[in-house]
Each structure stands twice: as C-alpha cells, then as structure tokens.
C-alpha cells in the first residue's frame, strides 16, 4: 500500500510541475495574440512549428498509412535540412531554404484515423486543439479525407490531402482549406478508357464490384461513363462493404452474369482480397461471349500489387506515380527514400511527401503562416521537378493537374518491387475537365 501512496505523490509532483509550466506560459499566448493577425495555432515567436500526420495505422488501408508516415518523416527531415534534401534539390520554382519553414524548425505529431471518419476527426481535433498543429495531412480513404477536410474549414487549419481518389474531395465536397495533389477517379476513367479499347475492344460487358463509400461510388460512375462511351455495356454494379475480407459471395454471381470484364473498384487490402479470390475462382481462364475474361483495377498501387502477388500479372489500372519513372524528381525521391528505409516508396508516400513540401513552400512564398495567405500562394501554383512533370494546383477546386500513368501488372518482374509496368503516360490535356461539372463551393478564406 505504501508503494501506491508514493506513486501518487510522485505523480502529483509531476502534475504540479506541468501545471506551473502551463500557467507560466499562458501569458505568452495572450500577449502574442494581441498584435498579430489572429488565427488558430499561430506559432508567433516560437522556434518551431508542428505539423500533424493523421494516417490509418489500423484497418484495410494500414499498409498505405504506414508508407505515408515514412514519407512524412522523410519530408520533415528534408525540410529541416537533414539528409540529402530529396525533392528539395529538384523542385522548381522553390522558395524553401532547407532551414525549416520561415526559419522555424519543423516538428510533427502523428495520429491513427483507423480508416473511420469518427476516429479521424477525433484524432485531427486532438492535433489541432491539444498539440497546436499549423497544418495537418493524411489520407488513404476519401470518406475520411472529406470528413476531416470539412473539419479543417470549420477550424481554420489547412489540410493537405494524402491519398484520396474520390471525385468529391475536390468536387462537390471541396473546401477552401483542403488541397489535393493526388489524381481522381474522373482522370482514371479518362486515361484508362483508350487503353481498354485498344486491348479489349469496343464491345464488352462490364461487371463492377464497388467499395461502398464516396470513393467507390465516384470511381464506379467515372469508369462507367468512360467505358460506356467506348460502347461497353454495364451488366451490374454491386456495392461491397469496406474491409469485407471475404468477397466470395460477391464474386460467385459474376460467373453467371454474362459479363466478360470485372472491374474492381477496391483499394488496399480489399483489392488484394477481391482480386486474389477472383483469380482463384478461375475468372481469368474463362471464355465468355467468345472473348477471354478480363479484370481491371482502375486504381492501382505498388503496395497492393505486392499483396496480390502473381495474380496481378497483366491487369490494367492507373496510378498517380510509380517509382520506376526516370525523371530527375522521381529519381531523387526514390534514392533518398530507399537510403532511409531500404525499399522504394509507394504512390501514397510520394503524394504525402510532395504535399508536405508544397505546404512548406507556400508558407515561404507567402512569408507567413496566416492560412488565407498560404492558401492564396498555393492556388494556381505551377511547379515542376516533383515527379509528375509540370503540375498546376488549380485555383477553382484545389485539384492538381498533371499527367496520369496507365499501368499493367508486370509479366516478368526483375525484382520484388518491379511490379508495375507503365503502359502509357496520359498527358494532362486529356484528363482535364471543367471544375463546374462536379458542383460544390470552396467557401470563405477567413473563418
């Protein structure tokens, strides 16, 4: 019993110390708010700033989340002038100096979104209210991205989307405080359709299996629109719950549906499971309507390809970026990521890394952390050397426009990372669209 009593008093002492520190620093908070333009989590005269990295560490998208976190840590390192500088050496135009952001050292806090909107918002709120982050980032699920993006607007803290592919993120749910570097389902459809026509012809019957949330819905719609424009027919579109694990009950009906193409609007572990099961059920060996049965995975990633193993050979899809690209930016990023972790980065890692740098660069351009000014610096920002060629952050919907990669599961991989083969690099002009088609409004600069 005396042990317990000691423990309590020791803790009491620590509490007291922390309380004294809190009271001691409280006046600083008030005094610095007094003269600066008022905004949430203003770093003021502090020597460092905090960024929040909110990624799925558990759930169907955990693999992507882990890779995103690696990229964020690397980005922070490079921003602080440590390591080999990565994309800081190739980015053009660049305002960053490699001494932190606006002379302040970059620190970070992490959180687990659990791939759930609720948990993601709670975690983001913790970062904003408790840790005082000036910007937060993360992703892997569009449902989560949209939920925390509207939180960003309510709170007045900028959110740099990580991996989110739904049209809604920069479409009907776009927000002034949210920015997306990743491409979207519409672009996937536009880029993929001509390749599908070339390889599979203009008369196909497609069957969709779709993850039942915003991303799946918009991807299904975009792929449907662009394949039906080719002359394809859509036999059926079935919604499957996120993280279902077992897809056999959804795949069996495909066999007798008369369809000759299966389109898997799945991502992460869901895609690994559904694709593996579809192959196990012998779909790819079947002949339907006189044509051999094909599977398409519109959104691909190397991590998923790794999970699905040899089942992905020859399967078509699109991706935002792949480590095998040969431009200066991609080479620099793959090199420094490889040195740090011993394997090449995924597209999720790439987009998260780039987003962090873009935010930091915008702060340098604006000369302040005041969000409305940083947002204005990012809007319409044109840059190059970040791995996707010339890219523009469109001001009207905060969506980046750049070329899109159509890829295929590599038939003869030379290493265990060499899983995707780039079939075609579709230029920006072919995937661009009018921002008005998705509706939505960005909202005010000042909140």
């Amino acid at each position, binding site marked *: 019993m005396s042990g317990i009593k000691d423990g309590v008093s020791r803790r009491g002492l620590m509490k*007291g110390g922390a309380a004294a520190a809190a009271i001691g620093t409280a006046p600083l908070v008030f005094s610095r708010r007094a003269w600066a333009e008022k905004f949430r989590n203003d770093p003021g005269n502090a020597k460092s700033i905090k960024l929040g990295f909110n990624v799925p560490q558990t759930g169907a998208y955990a693999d992507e989340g882990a890779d995103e976190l690696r990229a964020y840590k690397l980005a922070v390192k490079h921003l602080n002038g440590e390591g080999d500088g990565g994309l800081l050496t190739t980015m053009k135009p660049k305002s960053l100096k490699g001494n932190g952001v606006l002379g302040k050292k970059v620190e970070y806090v992490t*959180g687990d979104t659990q791939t759930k*909107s*609720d948990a993601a918002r*709670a975690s983001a709120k913790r970062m904003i209210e408790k840790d005082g982050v000036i910007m937060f980032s993360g992703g892997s699920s569009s449902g989560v991205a949209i939920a925390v993006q509207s939180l960003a607007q309510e709170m007045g803290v900028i959110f740099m989307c990580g991996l989110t592919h739904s049209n809604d993120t920069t479409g009907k749910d776009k927000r002034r405080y949210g920015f997306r570097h990743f491409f979207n389902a519409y672009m996937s459809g536009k880029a993929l359709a001509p390749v599908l026509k070339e390889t599979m012809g203009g008369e196909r019957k497609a069957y969709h299996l779709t993850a039942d*949330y915003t991303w799946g819905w918009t991807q299904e719609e975009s792929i449907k629109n662009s394949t039906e424009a080719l002359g394809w027919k859509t036999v059926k579109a079935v*919604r499957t719950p996120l993280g279902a694990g077992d897809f056999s009950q959804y795949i069996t009906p495909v066999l007798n549906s008369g369809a000759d193409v299966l389109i898997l609007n799945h991502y992460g572990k869901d895609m690994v499971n559904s694709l593996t099961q579809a192959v196990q059920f012998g779909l790819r060996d079947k002949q339907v309507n006189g044509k051999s049965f094909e599977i398409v995975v519109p959104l691909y990633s190397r991590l998923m390809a790794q999970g699905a193993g040899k089942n992905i050979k020859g399967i078509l899809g699109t991706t935002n970026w792949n480590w095998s690209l040969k431009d200066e930016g991609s080479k620099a990023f793959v090199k420094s990521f490889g040195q740090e972790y011993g394997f090449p980065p995924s597209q999720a890692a790439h987009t998260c890394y780039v987003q962090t740098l873009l935010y930091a660069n915008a702060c340098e351009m604006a000369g302040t952390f005041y969000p409305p000014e940083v947002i204005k610096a990012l809007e319409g920002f044109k840059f190059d050397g970040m791995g996707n060629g010339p890219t523009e952050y469109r001001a009207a919907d905060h969506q980046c426009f750049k070329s899109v990669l159509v890829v295929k599961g590599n038939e003869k991989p030379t290493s265990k990372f060499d899983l995707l083969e780039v079939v075609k690099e579709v230029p920006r002009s072919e995937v661009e669209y009018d921002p008005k088609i998705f509706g939505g409004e960005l909202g005010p600069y000042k909140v």
Partner: protein
Amino acid sequence: MAKFLRNDLVVLAIFAVVVLAMPIWLQPLGAGYPDLLQRFAIYGIFAIGFNILFGLTGYLSFGHAAFLGVGSYAAVWSFKLLSLNVIPAVMLSIVVAGLFAAVIGFICLRRSGIYFSILTLAFAQMSYNLAYSVLTPITNGETGLRVLRADPRVIDGMLGVDAKGVLVTDLFGISMSGYSGFYFCAAMLIIGFFFAMRIMRSPFGMMLKAIKSNQNRMSYTGFNTRPYALAAFVISGMYAGLAGALLAATDPLAGAERMQWTASGEVVLMTILGGAGTLVGPFLGAGIIKYFENIFSAFNQQALNQAFSFLPEWLQDIVVGVISPFVGEGWHLTLGVVFMLIVIFLPGGLMEGFRRLGRLFTSGGNGPDRRKAASPAAQPQAAE
C-alpha cells in the same frame, strides 16, 4: 464524512463541480482540450445509462452502441431537416432511441443471461450492417451522414436564421464546438447523473436491484419482472440516444462505425472498469478509456525519446524500447493489462478500490478482513 457523502445533493454538487472544472484539473494531464473533454462527458452519459440496465438489473446488453448510433443519425437528420439548434436534435434523438430500445427490448427481454446478450449483440450488428447496406439512403453508408448547405432546415428557414459560411451547430447562437460545446455536454451529464441517482434511490430502482439478485424469487412474490426490465432497457437506450445526439451536436457527422460491436463492448468495459452498479464508477471508467484512446495512442517514438532525453543514450534506448509497445498503436495492450488487473484484483471496479482505500484510512488495520467479504464479483455492489 461518510454520512455527509450519503446526502444526494452533496454528491451531486461535488460531481457537478468536478465535471465543470475538468478543463482546469485535466490540463496538467494533457487532456484539457475541448474535443476530449466533450468525449469524457458524452461517454460518461452513455456509461451511466448503460449502468442503469447492467449495474442494476444485471442484464448484460452487448448492443448498446446501436442506440448511440440511432441517436446520432436522428440528431443529424434534425440538423438537416429542422434546425441547426441542438435542442430539437437532442429531443428527437432521445425519443427515437427510446422507441428503438422499446422494440428491441421487447424482443430481447424474453430471454435472460447469455441469450439476452447474444440477442442484443445480434440486433446491434444487424443495425450496423443495415446502416452500411440497405439503409444507405438514410445513413449515407461509409461516408457518414453530414450536414450540407443545401439541406432544407425548416425551422431555421421559418425563423429567417441563415447559416453563413461554415455549418456549425448551435444553442441559440452559442456555437457547439470548443468549450461551449463541452459545457453543454457537461450540463447534460450532470442532469443525466441526477436522474440516474433518483432512479437508484427510488422504489423502482429497488425493483431493478431485486431483478439482479434473484429474478425467480421476485416472480414468486407476484411481481411481473419484465415491465421493470423493459423500462430499465428503454431508459438506458434513451441515455445512449442522448449521448449519440451530443456526439452529433459537437461534431455534426454520423458514421455507422459508432454502432459496431466494438463500440458496444467498449461501454461494457467502461462500466466494469469503473464499477458496475455504482453511480460514479461508469463515468470514471468512460473517462479512463477515452483518455487511453486519445492520449496514449498519440505517443510516438519521438515523444518518448523526448520524455526520456535526460537519461544516458544507451539507457534511453532501452527504456524507450520497453515502453514503446505499450503506447501509440499499442495502447490497446496497456488498456488490456489495466483491465485484467482490475478484474482480478478489484472485481468491483475502481470504485471498490477507492472504498478499500477509504476503509484503510478510516479503520486502520481492519482492512484485510473486510476486503475478503467484499471481493466476490457476483455479489451486487451497493450503490455508492
């Protein structure tokens, strides 16, 4: 002192002061920020309500999260269709959750013990899966139900209130995010606590405890136990509905994951951790679990290294290496260990621990003998 604490009004006053002062005394623990404080209050309500069923009647419901989810959806629909004011949302949620509980309770209470638990679990899991599949027009599935600019909001429209810019719920103009949101939840918690206290002290509460101690004996004496159990079930469902409404009020987004069986299990853990059948215990348990979930899960390698930077480097590496599996992603592990320790050594939950400590101070060396008498878990705990 003990006599003094037996006065309900005094207990209520102390409880109110402690709850309202949470932003101050939780600050040094790193938990004094609005979002977590709101969660403490909301899950406190949820656990206190659950305790009315489990703590008093002994019926272990494994599906209480369904009512929380239903409450959230009802509240968000009220924000969409009626008004961004939280009052109609709270009322609507309580009513809807109560009705839902009446239906489910009517069916499930035909069985008791493990069969009752399994039935409630089945219903909750059914609601969860329905919310994801058939009911997506109402629940918006995985994306979650959100308040949109284009929603009708009939009452706001009639009163000419126009939500400009950001859509935030309010209480007659007071925004429900941040500290004002917490104080609203805290007020609801105190009211909920008061009602729970009145119920425990009432003849109705005595009936519920009688169901727990021996339902057969109670029926032999001529009481029909089912209406009492059903009433307790509906009341605790309404508490869950209130908690769901507050979750939606402080953050206008409702997702189906709130109804998942893990969420139902969580409230059981909260109640047992704090002390089933006690007044304050469930709130305490809720606070501890939410603290672990939000604070422990956020410790990362970097934070640990900073915390132990005063040690020599080799020792720092060892200490960080030992602790890191228990924080961050591993917070469940810590919670599991704590839960096991409590169930093994303090079957009556934390409240039993406090009682033992209290006894130790008041009656010196007599502690061990009395402890023996108090320990069997099956014995109903006195309402404290």
